[in-house]
């Protein structure tokens, strides 16, 4: 059938129909476009009379707005916009314009988004949830010289072995928030043997190995490692395997996996106390976990329950504006705006990509989480909190029970030696 005549005519017509279909799709989408009033896509949120001599700053927010990580991306974007709105669209005298793009959790889409934004001349890029996607765009971003603030993606090496001058991260590296709990569990909680249960992908492996490194270096012993696939619907077979030799269980399971893991853990009446990475009891899922999370001790650089004026102001503003509970991701967006403000304040003269990179590297801010600054690899140094889930006035929260100020991505280790060792992801399965 290949060589039937007049095929080219048909092809030409097919192209026309393609266009027609695309146009039809756009017409249909106009209705949907109006319903979520989106303050970020138009510059009109900014006041009409910006400072005459301060140049406007354009920020590209690149987060997944569709797909499995959409909720995280929306929290980051809303946190950023909220801080901006509270300052009438002006940071350090500059009018700030926001452009949002969807990564759709896909490398090619994210690359197109980044290319478009850098061509539009954005001064700052912020976002990214999936580490693989971030790796995929890193080369383009390094080439462009535009500063990037990573707001979620955790892969250790983005700010270690693959660090770049213009790439910063104010969220955690996968292992950064896990390592302090390794020491805490061994010395403070006194759990001498531990079983690790977690999700079977790079984040899970890096977090688990980070915890195990610090835990074993404190003198205790990991006796078992169990990994389950992302999106495991039934955790019962995994929970049942937990070894009696373990005095406690450390878990890493963000998102809906965390809900189902805790449910199975309680259903099967596992007797050992449960501790874990902070993402396992994120505020986003804690409202679903409820009593199944009662008493779980986790470590993270943020908790909605942090008792400080900065945090209370942020929590109140976010919950009033969006009607959702705050999360670490919303805090990342808010803190990104704070970083940009502090960087712009420190720049004398013209804001260029180079001066902005330089300025971001030197900022010190008081974020809702507490003091924050960047190390020489572009990774944030901040306080890691040990939190315990408890019910306060009918709401489940991560109560802060202890804190490790100025925690670096290398914990107490020497950066050179840390990076010369085996990457943490490759150590999974070697601890038991």
């Amino acid at each position, binding site marked *: *059938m*290949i*060589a*039937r*005549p*007049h*095929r*080219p*005519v*048909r*092809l*030409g*017509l*097919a*192209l026309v*129909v*393609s266009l027609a*279909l*695309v146009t*039809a*799709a*756009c017409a*249909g*989408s*106009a209705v*949907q*476009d109006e319903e*979520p009033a*989106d303050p970020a896509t138009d510059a009109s949120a900014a006041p009409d009379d910006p400072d005459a001599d301060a140049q406007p700053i354009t920020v590209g927010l690149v987060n997944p*707005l*569709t*797909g499995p990580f959409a909720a995280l991306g929306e929290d980051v974007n809303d946190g950023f916009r909220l801080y901006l709105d509270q300052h009438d669209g002006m940071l350090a005298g500059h009018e700030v314009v926001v452009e949002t793009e*969807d990564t*759709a959790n*896909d*490398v*090619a*889409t994210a*690359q*197109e988004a980044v*290319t*478009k934004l850098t*061509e539009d001349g954005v001064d700052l890029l912020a976002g990214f949830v999936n*580490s*693989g996607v971030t*790796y*995929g765009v*890193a*080369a*383009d971003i390094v080439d462009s010289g535009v500063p990037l603030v990573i707001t979620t993606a955790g*892969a250790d*090496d983005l700010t270690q072995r*693959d660090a770049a001058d213009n790439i910063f991260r104010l969220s955690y590296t996968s292992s950064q928030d896990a390592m302090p709990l390794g020491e805490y569990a061994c010395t403070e909680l006194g759990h001498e043997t531990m079983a690790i249960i977690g999700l079977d*992908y*790079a984040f899970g*492996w890096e977090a688990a190995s980070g915890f195990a490194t610090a835990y074993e270096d404190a003198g205790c012993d990991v006796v078992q490692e169990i990994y389950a696939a992302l999106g495991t619907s039934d955790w019962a077979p995994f929970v049942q395997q937990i070894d009696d030799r373990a005095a406690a269980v450390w878990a890493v399971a963000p998102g809906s996996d965390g809900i189902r893991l805790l449910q199975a853990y309680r259903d099967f009446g596992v007797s050992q106390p449960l501790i874990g990475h902070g993402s396992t009891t994120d505020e986003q899922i804690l409202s679903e976990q409820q009593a199944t999370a009662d008493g779980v001790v986790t470590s993270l650089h943020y908790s909605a329950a942090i008792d400080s004026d900065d945090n209370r102001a942020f929590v109140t503003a976010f919950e009033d504006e969006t009607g959702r509970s705050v999360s670490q991701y919303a805090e990342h967006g808010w803190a990104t705006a704070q970083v940009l403000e502090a960087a712009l304040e420190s720049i004398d003269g013209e804001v260029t990509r180079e001066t902005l990179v330089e300025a971001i590297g030197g900022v010190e801010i008081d974020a809702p989480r507490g003091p924050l600054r960047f190390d020489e690899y572009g990774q944030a140094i901040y306080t890691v909190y040990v939190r315990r889930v408890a019910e306060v006035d009918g709401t489940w929260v991560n109560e802060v029970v202890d804190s490790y100020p100025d925690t670096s991505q290398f914990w107490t280790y020497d950066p050179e030696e840390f990076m010369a060792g085996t990457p943490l*992801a*490759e150590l*999974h399965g070697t601890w038991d």
Partner: protein
Amino acid sequence: MSSTTPDLRRQPDPRRQPDLRLVALAVAVVVALAVVPFVASTYVVTVVLRMVVLGLFALAFNVVFGAADMPSLGHAALFGVGSYACGLGLVRWGWGIGTVVVAAVAVGTLLGILMGIATLRTQGIYLLLLTLAIAQAVWGLAFQQVRLTGGDNGIAGIDRGLLTLGGDGLVGFYWAALAVVTVAAALLYAFRISIVGTVVEAVGMSPSRLRALGFAVGSYRVTAFAVSGAFSALAGMLMAMATRFVGPENLAWQLSAEVMLFAILGGAASFAGPLVGVVLVAGAEVVVSDWTDRWPTVLGLLYVVTLLFLPDGVVGWLSQWRDGRDDPDRPTRASRVGRSLPPAVEAEP
């Protein structure tokens, strides 16, 4: 044409003559694509480059799907092994670009042959599930072998400057990729109108009849998978260089579904139909996502409507519209799936 035993070598079969109008159109399209970097922004070049590479993948896929009528849902594996051959070869093992091209095509061919042999005795939904299972196994391998593949963090830092033609960076690679895809598409077209390609298509129409005529149906099915695998892997290699990155998503089943969508939407019965599908789907993604955050919903609806009303794809619908919709003898995809003989053959005395 009176004999029922076909001697394909002797008969002047219009199926086996190159369609000069299609060739002319292809030349025009390639020239138009070649001037894109002169007139459009980097962003547009990025988008078009992705379409060009996916276009080759769709053409390769259609050798198995449209021609041999085997609904493979495992083609992402054939595409992805090419990507990984490129990523591993260039970044981990320091190979030259020539070695990488050979390795990618070889590994794609081998996996294609394996897939073809494994699915020899299956049809329809069973073939679909078996190819999906094989592809998922390959995906799992890439996902778990962290030391080699980086797991879901993938392999970054692929140097696309190694494959360049008349320009620097993105544009140089764009022209090189366009040249590779043009040559590959021409080879695929030559295969489709060759004797073997014609038999592969006949196998797709009626395997039992071909078997009755004495053709070794199985070997033609494996050949289709091998050819498809070679060119899919080549497309995968180009994609890894275009994005300078390879991760498990290059092997994910979603990609297998996407390429099937290209073929169905564009029209699997014609050679160039899948290309129309690529332009439609990839183009719609770019345009619609500019308009609304709910773009997957819009695209989903668009696909459902298209499949409901244009079961033979856009090209099939257009040819139906041109030939007149009352022609009951016109072969449709639906009739082919139903294993009825093509009316044109049946009508012969």
